[in-house]
């Protein structure tokens, strides 16, 4: 739609962004298809009850196929020509400033398109079974479609404003889906909490956009990235930190991580899709996408690294203490995204690995969540792992797929997670020894808590209640799980071999920076695997060799703290919520009593003055004469005074 090829700077050299033609010209359809589904389902009312869910699933499927076609087409292009721009219309033109509704399809967004549509499609299919008996499932599928559309908009947008639109859109979808069963008051609260905390992060996004417009006069990626070199270092640092703030909100990183655990209130497919595979990784996408900004600011990258490493440990510790299977997985998600953020913070050395881990994680974590959903499905929505045990016989497919995901996440070769996590840890070690140590420690804890989950759920004696009859889930649910399981097995190697992922992303994030490692790579891998096995062993000794009590033991101080998410909610409550409530209450009082009181008080004062003055009107003619004489003195006095 726009002028022909314009130049897009990237550290890797010249990247040509060409006008989207051919199949790339259909990029807008990627978003439009699920959006259409959402509109039809949400506005169509009860009429669409019968075919709505299927339609929604089909539309996402079509989008996936379209993405696949585009991918194949893109693979055929030379590496430098893999970026395509499409501008639909000008959204807000004001003087020299203007925002287009425009998309940029390049290797990075392509990866996300495939992830989102594939996992999204599978989750849709899964949901057909999982939500089969929910009276509101039409709405559910509408929301899911809305989410997919927003997520695609987020990753396809060619400027930050449009990213922000998608950003908020996924937030809204997340809110709607977390609160899908809002008849339960806590669920509604959880949804609200997620939305509000996300909005806190959005402050960063808004401010970053303002800063960009002020600095560059545009928010388009091309414009911002080409101008960023000339911007002052303070501005670049500020932009980086603001984008990081946005990322922490969406990706549940410290200090805005508190919502994710509660978000498990949503139906499990939602947790799989939104709160594991896609939306929560948007922060990683944002940082990687903004790589020209982070490349230029060591300070911003340091902040990113710190957030990542702290969150990965935090999430890991929390994960060890949770008895709720979904919450344990949520903590794990938090921790794994910590890895990604950490990688992204390492700069050119880590961008590709962040995305790598993001993709593999998308598969195995989605699979794990779907597995958990399957378990819950068979266990009458019981989420407490202390009430599980020995389920591997009752639901073999679920067990196998779950176990594959488990192996992937703890990083056992050759499962997917092994490759991606290993790369991150290597990069971290190369950057700073302590970072590496923390990352390796995190891997160990990951192994421990994930083993704990697997052991408590599928191994050991049965601990479920008498009236529960575990059974395998229907085909619609198991097929997606199997597909994701396959992905968890092969995706790592596929992307790793020949540095495929690195090369694929090179046009966007630049070439991988070679890092110097003091010790051989194999040694590191060995150490990591060793630590992982130690974690598994500890879990084995604690949860498989000893019976798991149905009532959770009190535990140590640390355990208790971890169970409470290290008192993050208590902290938020006492530092923000309570004072906020007091402030609000005070201001309401202030408004009613002081401001309005002042107004009403003035009125009363005038009224009172009137009543008092009125008493001068005594009805005695002599008093009136007196006031007249007083007036005479006044009048003549004023006249005389003027002459003085």
């Amino acid at each position: 739609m726009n002028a022909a090829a314009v130049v897009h700077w990237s550290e890797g050299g010249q990247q040509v962004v060409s006008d989207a033609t051919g199949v790339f010209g259909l990029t807008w359809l990627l978003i439009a298809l699920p959006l259409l589904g959402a509109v039809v389902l949400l506005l169509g009312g009860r009429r669409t009850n019968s075919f709505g869910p299927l339609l929604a699933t089909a539309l996402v499927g079509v989008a996936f196929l379209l993405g696949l076609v585009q991918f194949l087409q893109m693979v055929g292009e030379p590496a430098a020509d893999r970026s395509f721009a499409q501008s639909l219309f000008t959204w807000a033109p004001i003087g020299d400033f203007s925002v287009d509704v425009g998309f940029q399809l390049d290797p990075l967004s392509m990866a996300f398109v495939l992830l989102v549509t594939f996992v999204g499609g599978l989750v849709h299919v899964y949901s057909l079974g999982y939500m089969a008996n929910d009276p509101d499932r039409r709405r559910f599928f509408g929301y899911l479609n809305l989410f997919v559309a927003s997520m695609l908009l987020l990753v396809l947008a060619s400027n930050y404003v449009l990213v922000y639109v998608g950003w908020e859109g996924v937030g809204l979808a997340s809110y709607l889906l977390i609160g899908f069963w809002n008849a339960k008051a806590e669920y509604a609260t959880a949804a609200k909490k997620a939305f509000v905390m996300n909005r806190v992060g959005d402050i960063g996004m808004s401010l970053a956009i303002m800063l960009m417009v002020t600095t560059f006069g545009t928010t388009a990626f091309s414009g911002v990235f080409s101008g960023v070199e000339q911007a002052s270092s303070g501005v670049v640092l500020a932009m980086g930190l603001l984008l990081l703030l946005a990322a922490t909100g969406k990706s549940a990183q410290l200090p805005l991580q508190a919502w994710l655990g509660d978000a498990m209130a949503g139906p499990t497919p939602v947790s799989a899709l939104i709160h594991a595979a896609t939306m929560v990784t948007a922060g990683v996408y944002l940082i990687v996408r903004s790589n020209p900004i982070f490349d230029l600011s060591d300070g911003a990258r340091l902040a990113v690294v710190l957030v990542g490493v702290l969150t990965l440990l935090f999430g890991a510790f929390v994960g060890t203490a949770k008895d709720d299977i979904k919450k344990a997985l949520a903590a794990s998600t938090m921790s794994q995204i910590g890895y990604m953020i950490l990688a992204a913070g390492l700069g050119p050395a880590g961008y590709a690995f962040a995305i790598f881990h993001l993709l593999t994680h998308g598969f195995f974590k989605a699979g794990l969540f779907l597995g958990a959903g399957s378990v819950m499905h068979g266990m009458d929505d019981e989420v407490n792992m202390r009430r599980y045990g020995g389920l591997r016989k009752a639901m073999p497919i679920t067990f196998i797929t779950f176990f594959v995901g488990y192996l992937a996440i703890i990083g056992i070769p050759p499962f997917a997670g092994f490759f991606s996590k290993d790369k991150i840890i290597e990069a971290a070690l190369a950057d700073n020894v302590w970072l590496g140590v923390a990352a390796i420690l995190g891997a160990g804890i990951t192994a421990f808590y994930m083993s704990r989950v697997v052991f408590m759920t599928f191994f050991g004696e049965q601990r479920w209640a008498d009236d529960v009859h575990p059974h395998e889930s229907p085909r619609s649910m198991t097929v997606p799980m199997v597909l994701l399981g396959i992905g968890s097995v092969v995706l790592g190697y596929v992307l790793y071999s020949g540095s495929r992922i690195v090369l694929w992303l090179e046009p966007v994030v630049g070439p991988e920076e070679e890092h110097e490692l003091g010790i051989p790579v194999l040694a590191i891998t060995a150490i990591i695997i060793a630590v992982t096995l130690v974690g598994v062993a500890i879990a084995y000794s604690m949860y498989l060799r000893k019976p798991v009590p149905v009532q959770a033991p009190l535990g140590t101080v640390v355990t208790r703290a971890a169970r409470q998410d290290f008192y993050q909610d208590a902290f938020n409550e006492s530092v923000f919520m309570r004072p906020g409530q007091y402030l609000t209450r005070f201001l309401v009082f202030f408004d009613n009593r002081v401001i309005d009181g002042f107004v009403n008080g003035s009125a009363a004062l005038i009224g009172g003055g009137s009543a008092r003055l009125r008493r001068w009107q005594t009805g005695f003619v002599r008093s009136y004469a007196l006031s007249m004489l007083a007036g005479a003195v006044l009048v003549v006095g004023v006249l005389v005074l003027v002459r003085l």
Partner: protein
Amino acid sequence: MNDFPVLSILGLLPFAAAVVVGFLPHGRELLAKQIALVVSLVMLALTVAMAISFEPNAAEPFQFVEKTPWIEQFGISYALGVDGIALVLIAMAVSLGPVVILAGWNDADDNERHRPQTYFALLLALLGTIVFVFAATDLFLFYVAFEVMLIPVYFLIGMFGRGQRTYAAVKFLLYSLFGGLLLLAALIGLYVVSARELGTGTFDWTLLAGMPIDPDTQKILFAGFFFAFAVKAPMVPVHTWLPDAAASATPATSTLLVGVLDKVATFAMLRMVIPIFPDASEWAAPFVVTLAVISIVYGALVAIGQTDMYRLIAYTSVSHFGFIILGIFAFTEIGGSGSVVYMVAHGLSTAALFLVAGFLVKRRGSSLIPSFGGVQRVAPLLAGFFLVAGLSSLAMPGLASFVGELTVLIGSYQRWPVAAVIAVIGIVLSSLYVLIMYQRVAQGPETENVKGMRDAVPREVVVFAPILALTLAVGIFPKPVFDVVNPAIERTYSFLQVAPVEPEVPVGDVTTDGAATDGEDS
């Protein structure tokens, strides 16, 4: 353009209809409503026709100009005309006309004291004054419309309101009069100054705008104008009339009052305050911006603490008006255009909120938030409306307010970064007040209170649909609005001395979407 006096007809038609409707005998209530609806639709058609033949980039400031001498001794004329800003706001107001009439269809039916005829006559009269107030290019005529506007609202609140309607009506009127009379004093001062500067005194905007006035005088006159508009807008700390008025008025009245009428103030800041008192505007801008930011945060915080839906919505408006004023006083084109879009968006979102809240309140008989709970279980459609209205209020992308809020923030950040940074807190607070209200009203288990509540009836759907459509239209494709507004904003700020804000690192020529030429030739 042509000689067809479209603005006069647009303004006078509802008055004529109001007289007819007001004098309809008992028993003809339905006819009254129908006339009102038809007239409002005719107005809408006229406005659409006007908008189509409007030329955004015309050289002269006003189009559809009409001018007849009125009080020649004082250079007062009956002068009408619209620029882009006025056109957009008239369009917004007139679009809400049929919506509001339909929404208030049964509002006056069970009123023991007063007849529906009166209700609809007052609504029509209000619509008429609104047209005049936006279309007047003579300041005196503007003032007349500005004050006359109070009368129908006053009666609408006092006659057809609920609760403390008398208190609210009187408070509204006195507040407005207080501001209005100071405005009158300032207006007279301006006239006297114009007589000195131009030889003959005048109230003609085209002569007054950009007229040299010595700075001290400007400051005094500015104070008079600004105070009146701050009361109307409403800004903290002169806002307390609004919650009372909104809590007592019918939703239809509140919609027009908050959604449209209060825009007069922000409109007048752009139309009058800045072009006529540019120096004083620059001088006072830090103060105004501070107040605006206080309004944003304060309004939102107090909104969070409200237990009455109507009052809550009123306080959200205080917050939103803070954004609008912040945008205006950013003195950047982005901020200015953004604030106009925000005005439109706020009109729509407030309309949606008030009207949907009204549907709920009508069913429940109470506007207190705790008297609801779990509405979604019994009336999912209504709850959905409510949520969408709320999202519109919290500036969800895709909806109109987002466009306004984002551009306002960008525009104000360019000039007043600190203010913009504080104002951004408003977006968190807005999600709090909207979602808390939605949660308490619509979510959670179905409560005794809402048992048997009927879901939205077709009339309500018809009321909500156009608002939603407009909100989405402006949210997704705001360009037509910007195209119309931009030239007017540019003209407005051309009176100022402040340097336009230039990007530090201009990269306009290499963007894919930011090219300066995009607006015209794509």
